[in-house]
């Protein structure tokens, strides 16, 4: 093999020669270049020479020789991507390059990228103008212009993923989901690269309007879950959200390397965006940074993109003020704002923003002026600009929409992450969310090309000084500019500056609050906050209040800070987003660890609770501890102790105590307390708390009643049923449902919205296959339909967005059902079955008879069996050795069988039969022998989806159908496991016994005690194994045992705390009802009881009589209660005619749904929809009491055909 001349040593020698006399430098350098070029020409592997050139040259050398080296004949003819970054076809985006290597250090990769881009200067010189115009047109909804600009960009600068993403977003906004999806589909069906297809698929979902940021993030995370090539994973993550920057330099370098195989536009945009982030991070300059800076300066000279201005300033290169920065009109807006000329601010801002919507610096003064003057945003309400402004306004004014506005803006910044506006939105958000200390809050300023009051704060002191100096020289009188100087002045001068420049009182308050905070004069900050406690100006109040809380923290007054945060939260719960919750929690934790003392104020559990739920912070267990600590430090043990004490002492319940009782005194938190005895105790304590809360916090009565109902019902189920039998397979369905409502609801909503907007076409070929499988005559079946369809994977089944989403829903539901850390099947398998239980269970019969020993892990062999050695002391030593050897083998084989069972077979797998990675390579399934199989084949998913489409798509029904699918799968698995245990594992165990018994036959001495022990053990093993097989079953039909109707009434009785003497129940001949109807029956009686109390005007003392009889499949319920009324019976009946008339009509049902499903129409829904009862009759009204005509009674006569629902 020919040795390459261009090695590291050669380079060193070139370098050392270059250090010689300066006069010879030029000549030497020329020689160096010549030598590199000669090496390239003479090498059989010129790309390796190129690699060494990139790797071993100094950055100065790289910069100097890059163009010559790259354009050398041999490199040029190597078909490198670097020469073909402008592509006219989408299919050519992202084509693998032959110059692939591991990334070098980040600065070197940045230099290489910058040099590559510099070689395309002639293309890029005016790209930024088109790009800005496109961004403006998009923000102003000028979609015709946007599309025509995109076409022009594609023609002139080549196709790019950047352009595709923009086009998808524009089509979504201009023509809606269908058009956007149609475009994505044309690309999917084209010969575009796999990488591009993946990204386009994710861009297209990101462009959809109805999905939230959290949801999109979940989709993408889920998508990349099995992705094990981190460099590629980080690249994709970055491409779908350009605000996502990897933590490690290595992966930023990887992004640059991947982008070099895409397109010129992608490479340029990625370079600038990454650089904007990098300069805002803790960027540590190296010796060779100056080379890079020179290259960037050269780029700016050739491509005057305004984004370079702030990047260069961040790199400590002063770039004089640009024309945009010097724009006097914009400065006037800031001056007018400080001087309270709000109308001018509004008018001028609107004039400018309607042409330059990306001047985000103007958003805040504009929106604050609108707020102060109580005006409306009068820009075109159809535009993206308007949408952003409205959301920003919702943030500033902390109203009920604030949290949604924050979430929406996060989603917008992902959707438009390839535009500058996303950086600016991110800065707005991060500067608003006080807990967020990310460097990213600075990134928005990089793309701020106009004046901004705070932009200079990101520069170094040197640059900042020059910047302010130049501004004040150009505009000496503008107060906004003078603020930049005077902010550092002494208090007296600053105050007199504010006075002289006629700064408004409002601005003065804000500026002084900030001024004193910066100067660490916290008492002044506090004073300002106190002076503004009652101001109606929410924006002002939030600003000074936040400054005040932060100043308390700076003074180590964390308890006061905590109280202030909680007080602020209770005044306006929408302020949660802007309160420094994590800051305070961190300081408190630090203080506890230092002082060994927890805070005893009620604010503490509330703060930690809020931190857990709103910040997703790891404070859950501390909240649990603080729940108890608060009670104990006030001499209570339980919440009901506190309530009784308050009631006895006639203490009022303040808002914080009610919050504590309502949100924190819940079983999930209380169960860690020392003073709660068990699960049932926790539930009962909670029910008592809820009963008290009905009167303490009456406005939420309905919610508390519902909670009591749910908990009473669960307690009944837990008490009455044996559903959680020891070692039975169990999944906590209530817990799973809770998880579904958190994790699945968005997917469900999106699926419904897609089904609504697209007419879903079933695949007739697939339907035929499903029909065939379903209709195989039963005598020919040796497998069930579920088993058959689960083993059939058909290639080339068409799928669309709806199919994909449904698949995701099923997979997510399955993952929660199977893997949820608290409620899932695997946690039960792990703790109840695998976790030593099986080993103990299957070893016990052998240990009892002393025929198994332990393995010595160090020697990796089984121990001697001392029992038999001692018993057979009279045998020959060779015979003893033989017995020991056979017993050791027996022990090993037995343990190996158990090990195989627990480690391989009784595991869960969710892998598909054909599981490929992004490159189409088959991924080895980790749990390939696992018997709990929860994979779905493509045809199986279709079959499930089609069956769902035939059913009610209401959320509750949808979830219950999903659970049914998963239980069906579990049943198939359990059947298979029982079969494997019976036909494979048990025979293995028996064989091991047989082998041992045979092996011992060779000993002709009397070893009958051992033989008897083996036989005895074998018999016991048979029973143990039968027991083991029985573990793998679950309760049939429903999770709830069949029950008496009286139990449903008892649950409702407990909810209303109904005394026996006010309630007469006569039940005649009523059989047990099936467990699955319990929830519905409780609901029906709940409605009847609730109605009785609400309208009787006799409150909870209302006497109620319930008669229930069962005749010919009909359950007849007749309920009466006395009422107090001065009206006649006719008048009373007349007043409810309309309710009777509307019962069961569509209109009433819709109303029922809207109004939270209360009243008699809910009974109709329960019976016809939930229980699917074909026939029932409901009558109700007022009658005279049959014994005393003076007493008026309300009656409910309900006749239900319960055929099929009784046992």
């Amino acid at each position, binding site marked *: 093999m020919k040795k390459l001349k261009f090695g590291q040593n050669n380079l060193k020698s070139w370098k050392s020669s270059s250090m010689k006399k300066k006069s010879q430098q030029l000549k030497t350098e020329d020689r160096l270049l010549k030598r590199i070029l000669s090496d390239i020409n003479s090498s059989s592997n010129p790309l390796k020479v190129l690699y060494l050139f990139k790797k071993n040259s100094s950055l100065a050398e790289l910069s100097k020789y890059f163009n010559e080296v790259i354009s050398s004949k041999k490199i040029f003819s190597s078909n490198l991507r670097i020469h073909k970054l402008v592509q006219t076809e989408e299919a050519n985006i992202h084509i693998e390059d032959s110059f692939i290597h591991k990334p070098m250090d980040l600065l070197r990769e940045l230099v290489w990228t910058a040099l590559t881009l510099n070689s395309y200067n002639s293309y890029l010189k005016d790209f930024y103008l088109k790009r800005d115009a496109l961004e403006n047109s998009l923000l102003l909804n000028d979609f015709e212009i946007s599309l025509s600009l995109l076409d022009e960009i594609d023609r002139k600068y080549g196709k790019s993923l950047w352009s595709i993403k923009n086009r998808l977003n524009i089509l979504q906004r201009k023509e809606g989901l269908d058009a956007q999806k149609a475009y994505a589909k044309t690309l999917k069906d084209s010969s575009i690269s796999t990488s591009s297809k993946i990204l386009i698929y994710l861009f297209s979902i990101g462009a959809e309007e109805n999905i939230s940021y959290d949801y999109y993030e979940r989709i993408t995370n889920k998508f990349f*879950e*099995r992705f094990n090539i981190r460099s590629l994973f980080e690249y994709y993550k970055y491409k779908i959200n350009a605000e996502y920057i990897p933590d490690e330099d290595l992966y930023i370098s990887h992004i640059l390397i991947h982008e070099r195989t895409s397109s010129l536009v992608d490479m340029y945009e990625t370079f600038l965006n990454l650089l904007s982030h990098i300069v805002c991070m803790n960027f540590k300059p190296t010796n060779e940074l100056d080379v890079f800076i020179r290259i960037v300066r050269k780029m700016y000279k050739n491509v005057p993109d305004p984004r370079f201005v702030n990047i260069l300033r961040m790199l400590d290169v002063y770039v004089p003020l640009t024309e945009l920065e010097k724009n006097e009109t914009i400065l006037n807006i800031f001056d007018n704002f400080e001087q309270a000329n709000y109308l001018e601010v509004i008018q001028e801002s609107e004039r400018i923003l309607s042409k330059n919507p990306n001047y985000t610096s103007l958003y805040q003064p504009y929106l604050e002026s609108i707020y102060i003057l109580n005006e409306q945003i009068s820009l075109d309400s159809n535009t993206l600009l308007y949408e952003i402004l409205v959301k920003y306004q919702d943030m500033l004014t902390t109203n009920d929409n604030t949290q949604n506005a924050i979430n929406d803006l996060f989603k917008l910044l992902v959707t438009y992450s390839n535009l500058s506006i996303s950086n600016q939105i991110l800065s707005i958000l991060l500067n608003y969310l006080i807990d967020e200390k990310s460097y990213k809050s600075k990134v928005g300023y990089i793309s701020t090309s106009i004046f901004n009051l705070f932009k200079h704060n990101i520069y170094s002191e040197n640059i900042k000084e020059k910047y302010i100096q130049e501004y004040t020289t150009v505009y000496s009188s503008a107060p906004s500019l003078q603020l930049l100087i005077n902010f550092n002045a002494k208090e007296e001068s600053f105050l007199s500056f504010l006075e002289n420049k006629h700064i408004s009182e409002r601005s003065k308050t804000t500026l002084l609050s900030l001024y004193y905070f910066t100067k660490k004069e916290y008492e002044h900050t506090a004073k300002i906050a106190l002076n503004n406690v009652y101001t109606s100006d929410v924006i002002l109040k939030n600003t000074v209040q936040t400054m005040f809380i932060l100043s308390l923290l700076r003074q180590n007054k964390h308890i006061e800070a905590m109280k202030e945060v909680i007080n602020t939260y209770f005044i306006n719960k929408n302020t949660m987003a802007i309160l420094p919750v994590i800051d305070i929690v961190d300081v408190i934790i630090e203080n506890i660890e230092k002082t*060994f003392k*927890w805070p005893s104020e009620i604010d503490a559990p509330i703060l930690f609770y809020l931190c857990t739920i709103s910040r997703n912070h790891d404070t859950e*267990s*501390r909240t649990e*501890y603080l729940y108890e600590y608060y009670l104990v430090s006030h001499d209570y043990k339980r919440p009901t102790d506190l309530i009784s004490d308050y009631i006895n002492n006639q203490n009022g319940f303040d808002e914080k105590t009610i919050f504590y009782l309502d949100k924190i005194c819940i079983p999930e938190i209380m*169960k*860690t307390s*020392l003073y*709660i*005895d*068990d*699960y*049932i105790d926790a539930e009962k304590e909670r029910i008592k708390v809820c009963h008290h809360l009905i009167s303490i916090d009456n406005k939420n009565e309905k919610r508390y009643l519902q909670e009591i109902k749910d908990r009473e019902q669960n307690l009944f189920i*837990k*008490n009455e049923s*044996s559903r*959680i*039998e*020891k070692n039975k397979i169990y999944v*906590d369905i209530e817990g799973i449902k809770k998880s579904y409502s958190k994790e699945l609801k968005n997917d469900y909503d999106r699926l419904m919205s897609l089904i609504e907007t697209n007419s879903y076409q079933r695949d007739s070929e697939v339907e035929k296959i499903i029909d065939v499988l379903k209709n195989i005559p039963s005598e020919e079946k040796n497998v069930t339909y579920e088993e058959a369809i689960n083993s059939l994977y058909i290639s080339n089944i068409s799928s669309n967005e709806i199919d994909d989403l449904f698949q995701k829903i099923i997979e997510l539901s399955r993952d929660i059902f199977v*893997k949820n*850390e*608290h409620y899932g099947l*695997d*946690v*039960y*398998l*792990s*703790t*109840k079955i*695998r*976790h*030593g*239980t099986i*080993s*103990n269970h299957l*070893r*016990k019969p052998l240990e009892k008879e002393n025929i198994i020993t*332990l*393995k*010595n*892990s*160090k020697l990796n062999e089984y*121990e001697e069996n001392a029992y038999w050695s001692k018993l057979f002391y009279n045998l020959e030593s060779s015979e003893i050795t033989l017995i020991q050897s056979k017993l050791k083998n027996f*022990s090993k084989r037995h*343990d190996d069988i*158990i*090990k195989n069972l*627990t480690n391989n077979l009784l595991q*869960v*797998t*969710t*892998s598909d039969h054909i599981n490929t990675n992004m490159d189409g390579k088959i991924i080895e399934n*980790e*749990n390939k022998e696992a018997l709990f199989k929860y994979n779905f084949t493509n045809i199986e998913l279709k079959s499930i989806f089609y069956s769902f489409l035939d059913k009610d798509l209401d959320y509750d029904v949808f979830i219950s159908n999903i659970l049914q699918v998963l239980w069906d799968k579990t049943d198939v698995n359990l059947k298979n496991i029982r079969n494997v245990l019976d036909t494979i594992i048990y025979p293995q165990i028996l064989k091991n016994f047989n082998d041992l018994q045979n092996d011992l036959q060779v000993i002709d001495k009397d070893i009958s005690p051992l033989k008897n022990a083996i036989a005895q053990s074998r018999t016991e093993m048979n029973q143990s194994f039968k027991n083991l097989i029985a573990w793998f079953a679950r309760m049939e039909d429903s999770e709830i045992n069949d029950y008496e109707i009286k139990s449903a009434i008892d649950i409702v009785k407990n909810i209303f705390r109904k005394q026996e003497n006010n309630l007469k129940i006569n039940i005649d001949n009523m059989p047990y009802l099936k467990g699955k109807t319990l929830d519905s029956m409780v609901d029906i009686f709940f409605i009847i009881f609730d109605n009785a109390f609400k309208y009787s005007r006799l409150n909870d003392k209302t006497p109620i009589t319930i008669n229930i009889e069962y005749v010919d499949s009909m359950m007849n319920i007749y309920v009466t209660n006395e009422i107090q009324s001065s009206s006649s019976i006719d008048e009373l009946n007349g007043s409810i005619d309309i309710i009777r008339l509307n019962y069961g009509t569509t209109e009433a049902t819709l109303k029922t749904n809207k109004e939270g499903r209360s009243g008699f129409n809910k009974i109709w829904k329960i019976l016809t929809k939930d229980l699917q009862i074909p026939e029932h009759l409901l009558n109700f009204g007022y009658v005279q009491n049959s014994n005393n005509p003076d007493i008026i009674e309300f009656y409910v006569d309900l006749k239900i055909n319960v055929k099929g629902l009784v046992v």
Partner: protein
Amino acid sequence: MNILLIEDDDEKRKKITDFLLNNYNPTIMHKKSFHSGLKELVSFKSYDCVLLDMSMPSFDITVNDSEGGSPESFAGRKLLEQMKFRFINYPTIVITQFDSFGEYKEKRSLEELKNELSEKYSPIYKGTVYYSASENDWQNILKEHINSIIKEQND
């Protein structure tokens, strides 16, 4: 030597107890759930060492509650956390038959768990012993940990 053994598995508890009785002269207090373990930890008794299982039910199994609340995969970690919150400083050894569950990157190895415990709960956390019903190695490792605790206390 006073030892608190918090372990819900009867067989495992018996084997650990036998081992302790054969090697030390301990007084052993047994608890079988997160909750009863916690109650014992905050009692004013003094323990030289706490032996802690990792997965346990949240409450003791009773006639009324046949499952003991719900299974807690990381009850041992939660108890260490509670000891930290309540400033309880008994030297603690985790003895687990830890069975990693989940697939792909969700799967947690015993090593990761050990690192986490060591990072968060040192110095009270002294180490983890992997218990296997079919092997004897756990006895040697447990012995090393207990001896080291005894040595520390004697020093």
